[in-house]
Every structure is written in C-alpha cells, then in structure tokens.
C-alpha cells in the first residue's frame, strides 16, 4: 500500500467518524465518542426504515416459522397435564411428571424402543456412509468409465422415489406367497413355503437398514466422489514411486483422504440418532413385527394419533428433542475442539 493510498483510507475514515492512530506502521481506527453519539441518535428508527423492504421480505417466513415451529413448543405443556381431545388445554388437570414416569419407570416399552431405534439408526448411518465410500472408490477406480456412469446414474435414482413406492416394491419382491423372491426360492426347491420377510421379527432390523442404505447409496456417494476428485495427483504419483499397487494406493492415499469427510458426516448426523423416518417405519411396522420394528417416532405416532394419548406422546417427543439437542451441542463442541470447525 502506497503513501497516497493510506492517506485515502485515513481521510475516508475521518469522514465516517473515526480517528486514525498510526503506530509502528499499522493504522488503528477508533470511533470517536462524539460520532458514536451522532450515529446512535438516529440509528434505530433510521435503520428500520432504511431496510423496511428487507423486513417486509423476511416477514412471511418469520410468520410461518412462528406458527409451525415455535407456537407448537407451547404445546409441550400438555405433557405435564392430563389432556384429552375436546378438553381445553388450560382446564386439563396438572399431572406433573406422571407421563415421564410412565415411560421411564412403569412402562416396559422403553428397552425395546431404544434398542430398535438405536440399532436401526446407527447401523443405517454407518453402513450407508461406509458403503457409499466404498462404492465411490470402486466407481472412481473402474476402468470402464461408461459403465461407471451408468451404474452411478442408476444408483442415484432410488433417492428420488417415495417410501410408499419403495414399500410397494419391497412387498412385490418379498411378500410371503406372491413375492418374487419367495416364489423363486420355492420354484427352485430351496424352500417349501415362502419366507415372511416383511412380518418376521428376525428380519426387521436387516430390512430397515438395507432399505435405507439402498435408497441413499447413490446420493451419499456423490459427496465421496467429489472428495476423491479433490485429492492431488501428486500423492498418487508419490505412492506409485514407492511401489504401491492399485490396492496400495487406495489404502495409503484415497482412504486417509476420505476419512475426514466420513467422520464429519457421522458427527453431523449424531443429533438425529433418535429420529427415524416416519414414512418408512409407518409402512414397515405391522402387528407381527412391532416388538422389533417399532421406533420412538412410530411409538409417538401410535400413542398420539391412534390411541389418542396426547400427553404421553408429547412427553416422549420432549425427551427425544432434548436428548437430540444435547447430542448436537456436544457433537458441535467435539468438532470444534478437534477440527476447529463448528457444525451448527
């Protein structure tokens, strides 16, 4: 910066109500007291008026958010009351922590629910990411680029179709008697009678995880493919000089480069570890496999809207949100500590 330039900065700063102090070659600007007073007098109303169009533009979103996200928070009060349909929220009798006690102490659903929720969520998160990572590596290493393109295009498609269509397909393939797989297995003579994939308790977790991995594989792999294309070629060249084959290059160059992405994605999803996709679990849960398939969200739905036990369902919702919030904040703190980046 030349002398003239710095002079310019100084005059501009003066005009805006700063005094400039030169100290050891660096300029420090300090707002003078007088000028602070000057700007303060008119700032509030002035600034509101000046940006009136901005406030007008943000207004619809603010209103919609209040109505659909913040006002419902006041509904948490019914968890501490005995609220029934038709009753006024204010008139319902207080019950204190009765609903929470019911869930934690009296009821025997807690263990099953937590187990189902955690197992399906953690395994689908881990398997989705690991498979997507492996898929991305194999795709980028494939010699036949055209085939790779086709596989990628096809693998991305399930991400866009609804859970209902996916469940219909599942049903068509795996139903007991009319399912394609059961029919084929019976035809070959491997089975006498079709397997009840969709109703049997033994298959619940596998089913929930496999379906979610299948749907998200292509979508997740995009992130990894982008990371792979960002790896500097020099690293591969250096590995080659050191005598690494293709597997060696993957093991010593690609994988270490993808690890941060993998870990960040896992941390980012920690806050949702108790939340499941209601669309999917509504369709997958049926009376025969409820013991192993029902997750917290489905339980809330069943108690709230099918059994009309509003207070109880809301209490569980509160627990879910609070635990999620604690997890997100801790994950954020962890991420800040180790990577210096905030995930929020």
């Amino acid at each position: 910066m030349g002398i003239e330039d710095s002079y310019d900065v100084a005059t501009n700063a003066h005009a805006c109500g700063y005094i400039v102090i030169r100290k050891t070659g660096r300029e420090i600007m300090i707002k003078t007291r007088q000028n602070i007073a000057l700007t303060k007098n008119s700032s509030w109303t002035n600034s509101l008026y000046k940006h009136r169009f901005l406030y007008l533009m943000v207004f619809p979103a603010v209103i919609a958010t209040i109505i659909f996200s913040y006002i419902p928070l006041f509904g948490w009060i019914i968890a501490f009351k005995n609220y029934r349909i038709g009753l006024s929220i204010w008139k319902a009798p207080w019950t204190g922590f009765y609903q929470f006690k019911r869930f934690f102490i009296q009821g025997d659903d807690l263990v099953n629910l937590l187990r189902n929720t955690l197992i399906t969520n953690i395994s689908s998160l881990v398997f989705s990411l690991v498979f997507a990572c492996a898929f991305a590596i194999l795709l980028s290493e494939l010699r036949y680029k055209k085939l790779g393109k086709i596989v990628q295009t096809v693998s991305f498609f399930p991400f866009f179709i609804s859970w209902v269509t996916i469940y219909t397909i599942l049903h068509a393939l795996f139903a007991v008697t009319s399912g394609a797989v059961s029919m084929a297995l019976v035809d070959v003579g491997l089975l006498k009678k079709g397997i009840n994939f969709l109703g049997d308790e033994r298959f619940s977790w596998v089913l929930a995880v496999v379906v979610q991995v299948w749907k998200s594989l292509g979508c997740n792999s995009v992130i990894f493919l982008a990371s792979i294309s960002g790896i500097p070629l020099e690293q591969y060249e250096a590995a080659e000089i050191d005598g690494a084959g293709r597997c060696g290059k993957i093991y010593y160059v690609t994988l270490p480069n993808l690890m941060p992405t993998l870990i960040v994605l896992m941390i980012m999803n920690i806050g949702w570890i108790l939340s499941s996709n209601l669309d999917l679990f509504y369709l997958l849960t049926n009376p025969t496999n409820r013991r192993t398939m029902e997750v917290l969200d489905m339980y809330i739905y069943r108690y709230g809207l099918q059994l009309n036990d509003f207070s109880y369902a809301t209490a569980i919702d509160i627990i879910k949100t609070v635990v999620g919030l604690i997890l997100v904040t801790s994950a954020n703190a962890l991420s800040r500590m180790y990577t210096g980046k905030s995930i929020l």
Partner: protein
Amino acid sequence: MVGKRSVNDLFFDISDLLLMIFTFIIMAYPFIYILSYSLSDPLKITTGLVLYPEGFSLDAYKAALGSPSIFHAIFISILRTTIGPIFMILVTAMAGYCITREDMKGVRIFRKYFVYTMYISAGLIPTFLVIKALGLVGSFWIYILPSSVSVFNMVLIKSFIESIPKSLEESAMMDGANDFYLFWRIIFPICTPVIAAVTLFGAVGQWNAFMDTQIYNTMHPELFTLQYVLYLALTTPPMDIGEEMRIFITPKAFRMAMTVLTILPILAIYPVLQKYFVGGIMIGAVKG
C-alpha cells in the same frame, strides 16, 4: 515384482468390475421387475423373478387410469407439486436473501431464529394441535403452508448469494434501487441455478409426501394424493376400477402399474434432477 503387481492389479480390476455389475443389478432390478410385471399378462406369469414382460398386456394401466379415485388423486398430487414449490420458493428465497444482509438490524437474530428450528422441533402432537386449531385439518393447504419455509433450502440459497460479489449489490444500491427491486431484479435472476435446484427439491418432496395425508387427511378422500392411494391399494384395490377390468388383472399387477405411474414423473425429469441435486448436495456439503 512388476509381474506380481500387474497380476494383482488385474485381479483388482476384475473384482471391481464384478462388484459394479452386482451393484447395478441390485439397484436396477426392482425397477425392471415392476415394469415387466405391470406390462405382463398376470395369468401368464409363472416364475418368480420376472425379467421381461410375459404376454404383453396394458390392462393394468387401463384399470388404473380408468379409476376416478386414482384420477382425482393424480390431480391433487399435481396440484400440490406445482403450488407447493412456488409458495416455498417465494417465502424461502426472500428470507434467504435477507439473512445475507449484514447491514440489516437484527440479521443475526433472524439467522438463529431460522436455524434453531432445524434442531428444536415441537413434535408430532403439539404441531398437530396447532394445525387443527388453525382449521387446516381436512384442507388442501395443509400440504402447502407448513412446508413453505424450508430452512435447509434457505441456507443453500444464502450460501449461494454470499458467493456473488458484493460490488454488484452495491452498484445497484448506488443507482437507487430499493431492496425489494434489488432482490427480484438483480439477485434472484443470478440465483437461477440454486433456485432451480431448490424448486426441484421441493417438487420432488411434494410429489413423494405421504405422511401428511396419513396424519391430517385420512377422513377426507377428496384430498388423497397418488402416494396415499398407492398405499391404500396395498391392502385393497380401489372399488371403482370397473367390473370387467377386475377379471383380467390381479391386485398385484394393478399395484405394479400404479407404482410405475407414480415413479414415471420422477423418471421423466430425472436427468435434470440428477444434475441439480449433485450441485445442491455440493453447496450443502461445502457449507457443512
């Protein structure tokens, strides 16, 4: 040494190729199956894993499209898929622009106000009670209004706007453009890529939505969407498909035809979708 390495590499290449073909089959076969099944003559299907239509027949499609209830459901689905994203983009894009304006008083508060909703959700029942109190249960607007603000999309739009050089905005402001004009005439047109991506996100979400009908509108058949009718067809095929049709098709063939019809619009715009989604995911990932 060299020989061993190339043998290893060859082995790797072959296993890679086989794995990719396997992935292709796992990903594509379910779709091949439903398509072939829906085009088959159900009475001629003898094997389990169908690979191609056996005894070509379009009866299942005729039955599906001949049912007034399905036709109406398609209409409702199309309606929400068009109105929903337009509403969402209007509300979300304007807010997304506002939260990039550092000079606006309270911009930090607005930002937190929106982002917190991603982590704090009141839950199913409190939301249900509010929506019921608003009189939205049993109305079409339940499909549109609650999804009119999408914070995730707002953040995408915000990140995109932040990547536009500030000087552009400043020069427009010098020329005396007000903020409203500035956004709609200058910022919005530049944002076309992200706006297109977000609109497509919204449209696909609307087309695929299922649970909102199940939660709010089960008592209102006139508001059933195609997804919901498809779900109902899992247990009972619609009653209004016509006597003469019922003789020729099985419930399963009928369901397969409906599934294909439900997927078809997505397939039609899939090339565009894929392109924009990849872009959208990348903006989101960079942000994350």
